[in-house]
């Protein structure tokens, strides 16, 4: 077995606020293989978002502090590498899809302007040379990749002119601009209605298959996981409590917490199953 694309070992993060120190990740281990489709599941406050921000290097320090562990990307430790090198990876080789389509796009600039600006600085960091026209062509290309029927029109639009689903796809296009190897998606589509969310998840799954990228999906919804992921990590209170292939985890959840999460998945048919598993406080 080859080394995974992303490998987190013993990651510890703590926050300091008003003189109180609070450890929120107590040694997280997680692997995302190349072309893998991995989900990180947990309830609000379990530490999923902190894990994601630590991977992307978006934690504000202070108040956050990474006190231990490694985050290996292509075998290199992101935590010890020079800031310059790390900036070359962020938003390019490793990229993320933002959660909220309503607030993650700047309202006063066109989609084209925002995507082209990101591409311009990504190119600059990587020492790539691209003319303005080539950048715009690339913007239209990624918009087509996220199934926009009229990429030029979408590019010329302001965010307010697009629906929530379209904006979410623009956010995915944003992540695809520089051909990432690893895509991290934070609760994709949770701000959207169920049908649109399903389309977004399908799109992400298709993109992973088409473009050969690895996906780390962060979600609180195991129903989403079942549809898309190959492997699942279940997180609770800052530690990974269970990890297995998706099939195995749904067939034989070992942890009580995992069973609770499953019970919490809303269903369209049949009676609800809240409380049947003996909940935990």
């Amino acid at each position: 077995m080859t080394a995974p694309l992303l490998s987190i070992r013993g990651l510890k993060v703590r926050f300091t606020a008003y003189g109180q120190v609070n450890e929120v990740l107590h040694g997280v281990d997680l692997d995302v293989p190349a072309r893998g489709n991995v989900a990180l599941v947990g309830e609000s406050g379990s530490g999923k978002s902190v894990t994601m921000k630590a991977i992307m290097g978006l934690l504000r320090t202070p108040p956050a502090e990474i006190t231990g562990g490694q985050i290996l990307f292509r075998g290199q430790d992101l935590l010890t590498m020079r800031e310059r090198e790390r900036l070359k990876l962020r938003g390019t080789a490793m990229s993320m899809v933002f959660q909220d389509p309503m607030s993650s796009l700047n309202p006063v600039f066109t989609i084209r302007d925002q995507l082209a600006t990101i591409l311009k600085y990504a190119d600059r960091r990587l020492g790539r040379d691209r003319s303005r026209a080539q950048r715009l062509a690339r913007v239209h290309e990624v918009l087509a990749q996220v199934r926009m029927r009229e990429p030029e029109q979408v590019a010329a639009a302001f965010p307010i002119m697009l629906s929530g689903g379209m904006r979410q796809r623009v956010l995915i296009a944003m992540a695809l601009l520089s051909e990432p190897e690893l895509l991290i998606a934070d609760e994709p589509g949770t701000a959207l209605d169920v049908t649109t969310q399903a389309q977004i998840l399908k799109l992400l799954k298709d993109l992973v298959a088409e473009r050969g990228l690895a996906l780390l999906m962060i979600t609180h919804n195991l129903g989403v996981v079942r549809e898309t992921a190959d492997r699942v990590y279940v997180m609770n209170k800052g530690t990974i409590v269970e990890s297995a292939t998706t099939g195995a985890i749904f067939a034989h959840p070992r942890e009580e917490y995992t069973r609770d999460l499953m019970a919490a998945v809303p269903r369209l048919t049949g009676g609800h199953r809240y409380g049947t598993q003996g909940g935990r406080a």
Partner: protein
Amino acid sequence: MEFLSFLLRRVGWSLLVLVGLSMVIFFIARIVPGDPARMALGPTATAEQVEALNDKLGLNKPITVQYAYFVGGLAQGDLGRSLLTERAVNDDIRDTFPATFELVFATIFMAFVFGVPMGVVAANWKDRWPDTAVRLFAIFAAVTPSFFLAILLQVLAGYVLGVLPTTGRLSPDVVYTAGPTGLLIFDSIAQGRWDVLGDAVRHLILPATALAAATTGQIARITRASMIDTSRQDYIEAARAFGVPGWLRLFKYNLRPSFVPPLTILGLEFASLIGGAFVVELVFAWPGMAAYGIRTILQKDLNAVMGVVMVSGVFFVTVNLVIDILVGIVDPRVRIRGKRT
């Protein structure tokens, strides 16, 4: 296209506001006690003379008829004659308004050129010393009356340091006859009179500073608050995650969406700016509308009062119209929503 209809609608509203203003001021000016003809002719005039002048001015006619006359004149761009100066009000205003216009514009310019960067600095270094400095300045600027600041500046820069002129628009030794617009800065550039330009700018600095201080503080405060608000938005974080450089995030991604509140505040502040201009003009012997306006009000020189108020009103409405257009340019959400409603 939708921008044009937005514009036309705004112009329509502005005209309506001006009509309302003309009515209110017209009737108030006539309700205020005092006999304009008696004041103009002085205590030695006979009752017949006063009556004759009242007849001549039409002041014996019903007030609605008087208003009709006034609007008729206004429609032809004629504001009537001033009793005080015995000249056409149009001429009086043409002589005085450009100075006020120049002062107010220099003030707005200063308020933005200093206020916005201060707000940016304060927001970027929130709760650190640059922020504290800006906030202190804003508070002091807001609570210092402009006439006090005017006198302070006059004493400091004019007499103690002796670096800047303290009265008038031009030095007496500068030979210059006013150009077509009456705006010294504009005319002198158009005519290539750089000496006049320099002198006019030097004369503008102190009065404009006195007038701009409070507005600068306001704009700095509003810009700061607005930018701090924007900085918490996901799109700023997204730009950071995708490696957009910090200065670009600050000046483009953050400042632009934050720019609408300071613009709007300026529109609201504009009325008090005109009022403040009158006071500052008196301190600096600035030959603007202030001295004229105040004298005409005290003398109940009705035509002149109406003229000054209407010109101020048009000025106010126009500036707010321009601000509305700028807001539409800065924030596409305003334009696009405007289309739907």
